[in-house]
């Protein structure tokens, strides 16, 4: 039975750890399907974490913190759009600028407002999201298999976890079953075709970036107002990049991107479990090596196992209408 509960807790943490990755990957799909590279997922996630924590601290309600985070992230996305869509700047450079700006800004603002560089005050229970116990979770726990599945795996997560997995079918539906999705995909493949169909290419890309901003805010808020009770320096810890890798690994498709996110989440959950555990025949693995697993996996997967990732055709190219 202990083995079973080990597995259950591993799956449980996989779901939790993958959550910000899923939000970020979905956000990335919107931007990149429209032809705009989004390296700034990392920075926006960090900013969202900061804004959500600070907003929730002052306003006393985590939902208001989330709302603020959404507003700020949409603004950042618009900034990215202004530089790279309207003014046709280099998209990667624009993202890098945003990322660097935010690392500095969050640290400096925290220092100015709370006297601690890169740290916000701890949120109390009112100010943060709590784990949701699904109805009857306690009473059905002892039923074999189903009980474990329901009580230990499905129940007891933060609201963001449920929202993240709910977002995947919704994103799929929007991208593939609506006219907005058709235009979104077209604008990333051949913007000229979209233009000659009488659709404004720039407006389409801005719309895609706005959705991107909303989704990435959830990832940040999850970090600072749910799993943690405050913001700390560089707390996004490369998750934005990891999500980008998952999205590419998933070939810009919500379903496969989800699988990639779960895979990354799983290796992370596994490395936490493995720390300090004596493995038969091998002994204790150095913690640094274990921690490196998700990143090594990323490199290996992207370098070889995925096959050729076919990006949207017009990605990274500003649309220039007149020669």
């Amino acid at each position, binding site marked *: 039975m202990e083995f079973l509960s080990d597995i259950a807790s591993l799956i449980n943490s996989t779901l939790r750890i993958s959550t910000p990755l899923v939000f970020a990957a979905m956000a990335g799909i919107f931007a990149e399907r429209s032809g705009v590279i989004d390296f700034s997922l990392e920075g926006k996630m960090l900013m969202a974490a900061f804004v959500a924590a600070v907003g929730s601290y002052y306003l006393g309600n985590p939902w208001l913190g989330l709302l603020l985070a959404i507003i700020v992230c949409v603004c950042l996305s618009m900034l990215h759009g202004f530089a790279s869509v309207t003014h046709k700047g280099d998209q990667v450079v624009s993202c890098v600028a945003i990322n660097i700006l935010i690392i500095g800004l969050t640290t400096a603002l925290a220092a100015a407002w709370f006297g601690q560089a890169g740290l916000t005050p701890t949120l109390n229970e009112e100010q943060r999201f709590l784990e949701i116990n699904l109805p009857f979770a306690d009473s059905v726990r002892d039923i074999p298999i189903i009980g474990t599945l329901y009580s230990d795996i499905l129940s007891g997560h933060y609201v963001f976890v449920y929202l993240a997995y709910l977002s995947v079918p919704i994103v799929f539906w929007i991208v593939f079953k609506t006219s907005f999705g*058709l235009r979104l995909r077209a604008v990333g493949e051949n913007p000229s075709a979209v233009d000659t169909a*009488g659709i404004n290419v720039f407006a389409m890309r801005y719309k895609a970036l706005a959705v991107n901003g909303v989704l990435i805010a959830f990832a940040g808020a999850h970090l600072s107002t749910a799993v943690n009770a405050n913001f700390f320096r560089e707390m996004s810890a490369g998750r934005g990049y990891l999500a980008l890798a998952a999205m590419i690994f998933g070939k810009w498709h919500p379903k496969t991107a989800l699988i990639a996110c779960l895979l990354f989440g799983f290796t992370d959950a596994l490395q936490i479990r493995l720390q300090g555990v004596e493995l038969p025949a091998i002994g204790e693995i150095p913690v640094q090596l274990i921690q490196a697993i998700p990143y090594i996996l990323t490199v290996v997967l992207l370098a070889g196992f995925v096959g050729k990732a076919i990006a949207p055709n017009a990605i990274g190219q500003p649309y220039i209408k007149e020669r």
Partner: protein
Amino acid sequence: MVSPILELTNINKSFGHVQANKNINLKINKGTIHGIIGENGAGKSTLMSIVFGLYQANSGSIKINGKEINLRSPRDSIVNGIGMVHQHFMLVENFTVLENIILGFEGETVFGEKLANAKKDLEKLCKTYNFNIDLDATIADLSVGFRQRVEILKSLYRGAEILILDEPTGVLTPQEVDELFKILRSLKDEGKTIVLITHKLIEIMDLTSEVSVMRQGEMVGHTKTKDTNKEQLAEMMVGRSVLLRVDKKEIKKGEVIFKVNNLSVKDDLDVARVKNINLEIRSGEILGIAGVTGNGQTELLEALSGIRKVESGNIQLFGEKISDQDNFLNPRMLKEKGLAHVPEDRQRMGLISDFKAHENLIFGYHDQEPFSKSAVLNSQEITEYSSKIMQEYDVRPNSPNLITSNFSGGNQQKIILSRELNENPKVLLVGQPTRGVDIGAIEFIHQRLIDMRDRGAAILLASVELDEILSLSDRIIVMFDGKIVGEKENKNVTDRELGLLMAGVA
């Protein structure tokens, strides 16, 4: 008196300093096929892009059926019954035909009923015009001819009464051109108005009832097609009389100096593009390669010129093996052995467009005397040389310090030719020498190639322009799907014969 369905008055449009359209006036009558002819860069496409709402004119007015309209985007034009088939198709390659056609005109937020209706309507349209298109096929799987039909279908579905086609035949085989013209004639019979933009005189004579001629951004004449002829139109296009036929002496064939044995080549995506090709060229001979774009000509030329790896087989120059799968000479070594290459894509491979003309003129020879001494460029020598050779090759303007991208396509091509021909190569590989080049320059370039041949060079000419192949070559091979599917002495060969081979059906 027929009233014009489309009337343009005093249209002006500039891009930066370049005025692409100057005071254009044009009347197009309903139910006609109206040709607009002019050289590349004469402003035809710009003018029609303005009518389609893609570009906005700086001044002037556009009337449809006598009513003035304001076109801010293609949507306005489409709503007013204007459709356009662009030279480069405006299709999303990984979408289906259906998705491409409804794009922008979905009529519903979530796909459902309207999509089903659209499909039914389109099936009906296909039947009416005998289009034979599978609406669920992905564009990437369709041939160029079919993609063009999708574009026409798209315009018709969106309610086009005026259909503009921009250089529609450039990528088609002669048979596909026949099909297209049949479609256009039947559209005309139904009362649609067709505007045909082209630089090919023969198409104007074949298809149109009225023709307008543009030169350097200006409209220089309108006439009924039956009141004019090719020579007259060519003169209007260029502004002086032009020789449409190439004068060619009888061939003085020499030794085989260039030979290709069982050559196979792959492209960047590892797809076999040249499959087991054998060919030989004699001194004093032009061997033409005909074929629809993308049938391996590009990769063949690249392999022969030393910029693409040979997968198997070998290449011989003067009986000496110069390349096989294990070792191949790079372009510089080939140049020293007397092989010159005028690449297909002059913007990407023939020139550095941001460099000055004189830099491009000596590129590849820049480290040799007298252009440089001890690794230092001798700018005086270079400028003098450039000025002299630009004179000789009639590059206009003769300003060696002008940035190359500011020259017209024809003059850029002359810059490359002068560089490659100046060393008197023994073997010359030429790809699409007159793509995007004006008639005047075509005449000049063709004459230069003939001169080279008469002096005993072996020339390999790859071109998608059948006229060019037919008028220059002594012998013609046709490539289809990476293979040579036909070889003919150029005597009494017709473009139809070649067309069948090019389509892979003969």
